[in-house]
């Protein structure tokens, strides 16, 4: 589950009747990460972000060894994750959601806006075209869906077929419709700075979905990460962490460049 020699330490928190696993590194303002449908995954981007943030990457209930028949809806799962963050005494935190976790993150921000400083959505699956399917299949199939350049990535570890089937069933049960008017109405009223990222080569959720968030949410920025597929942080970790870190630090003011072009002072 880790792409790099990570500094992350494993821990557990009991919240909402679940024993929830997490990985944590760094210090600074808290940054909570909710993973995608394939389960938790630490990338080099987590390492980069942990230099400036206290990064807490949760394993949502049902995505690890434990089954989760209890979460009755994606809102329910979002409440559980808010409860986990509160139990850890994180206070207000930045929230980053990946794909399916992006939809959980949207609901968490909508249901508990007082907890969320800023929202980062990595290839979010909260708005999907008709017929969109979660990623499944052999490790090779999954790599071809997730990456723009699977040939440049380390091979996907073989997944336990029982766990993979269980995760897929859970996502299918909870993910809801491609367009959810109730959620979209709430996003229109969401007064939280948001950054929405899509890889230009995303083959799971079309990057064109990005503009819908930008249009709906009053304080959202859309950024395309060039030549990345769906798993942006895994495929272009430096690019991902640079813009996410800058946005979390400065919000709207991140449009002002601090890039130095002096070659020879």
């Amino acid at each position: 589950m880790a792409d790099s020699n990570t500094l992350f330490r494993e821990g557990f928190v009991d919240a909402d009747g679940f024993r929830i696993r997490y990985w944590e590194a760094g210090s600074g303002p808290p940054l909570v990460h909710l993973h995608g449908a394939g389960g938790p995954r630490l990338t080099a981007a987590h390492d980069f972000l942990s230099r400036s943030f206290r990064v807490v990457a949760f394993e949502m209930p049902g995505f690890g060894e434990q089954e989760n028949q209890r979460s009755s809806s994606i809102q329910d799962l979002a409440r559980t994750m808010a409860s986990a963050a509160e139990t850890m005494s994180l206070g207000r935190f930045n929230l980053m959601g990946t794909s399916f976790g992006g939809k959980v993150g949207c609901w968490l921000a909508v249901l508990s806006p007082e907890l969320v400083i800023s929202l980062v959505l990595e290839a979010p699956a909260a708005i999907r075209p008709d017929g969109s399917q979660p990623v499944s299949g052999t490790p090779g199939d999954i790599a071809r869906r997730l990456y723009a350049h699977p040939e440049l990535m380390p091979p996907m570890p073989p997944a336990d077929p029982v766990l993979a089937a269980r995760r897929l069933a859970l996502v299918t049960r909870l993910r809801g419709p491609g367009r959810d008017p109730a959620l979209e109405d709430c996003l229109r009223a969401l007064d939280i700075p948001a950054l929405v990222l899509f890889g230009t080569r995303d083959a799971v959720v079309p990057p064109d979905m990005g503009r819908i968030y930008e249009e709906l949410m009053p304080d959202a920025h859309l950024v395309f990460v060039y030549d990345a597929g769906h798993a942006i942080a895994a495929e272009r970790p430096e690019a991902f962490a640079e813009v996410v870190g800058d946005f979390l630090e400065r919000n709207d003011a991140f449009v002002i460049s601090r890039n130095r072009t002096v070659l020879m002072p």
Partner: protein
Amino acid sequence: MKVSYFETGRYQAPPSLPAEWPMPSGAYDPGEGARVYQGMVDRIGYAEKLGFDWVSLSEHHYSPRILTPSPAVAAAYIAARVPNIKIALLGPIVSHSNPIRIAEELAMVDTLSGGRLIAGLLRGTSNEALTYDLNPQESRERTDEGMELILKAWTEPRPFGWQGRHFRYRTVSVWPRPMQQPMPPTYALGTSREAGDFAARNHIGLGVSYGPFDVMGKATGHYRAECARHGWEPGPDQIIFRANILLAETDAEAQRALEASPARAPFSLGTKVAEALLEVDTRNIAGEARAASINRALPINFVGGPETVIKQIRSCREQTGAGIIDLGFNTPGTTDPGALMGALDLFASKVLPRIRDI
């Protein structure tokens, strides 16, 4: 077959000038430069009257050979003075420039010309990398990224940021957008596997140039195969073949002119720079490696009297699938504008009416 006239904006350099690139800019004669630009309108207006479909312009630097370092500026001037012909920028060198600026300038030209822009996006020949201090080893990937960003800037309706490898923008939202919606007819220019892949993936055209028909056919074949893989089929208007033409009344006359043409390109690079550049600039045709073309005179694909040239154009269409030929009429080694107008006349009267059905 559609036909484009390649306007090179050729400056009449006196023979006393040194012939090595870069030409000393102190040797530039402002009066002659002004004549070049004014003459562009005469030549292009003439090509329009003769029935040419497009005029094409290109970007070159630091030499009198082609005096259009900013093709968008030339295009704006032509747009205001020549009323109907399509104006093809083949093209802005994407690797050189700020891609957002290119997107904005091309949108301006399209609008100023009443929707007559044809956009070709180009990596640029090896020597051009020397002008703006660009590492030739990065030019391929800068071009790929820049092209994608230009298309995005034209078509994305909401403000967006771009987190690239070579380009980074926190917010992009260009005004004006192109007059032709969603975008002008657009081509990736090049024979490489990367150019073909990009064009196929983005449903745009491909422009190839100067090589033998069978070799260029490999590049267009790769492009068409990739288009099929992406679920679409390009039409003949989506393949451009740029070439030099040496048309005369008879084959023998054309052959004599050909034999008199120089083997070395005008205003070549010094040998040491050329050799060093060859080492760092990699090129390919549909994935097969080839050396960059540096200092060699460009070949002339169409040579002969009208009958022979018509046969060659037919063969070009058969082997490359091109539905548009973009023709450089300047007889190599000569800079006589009268000869150019004569060649245009001859082409329009003896060749053009007989290639429309090819």
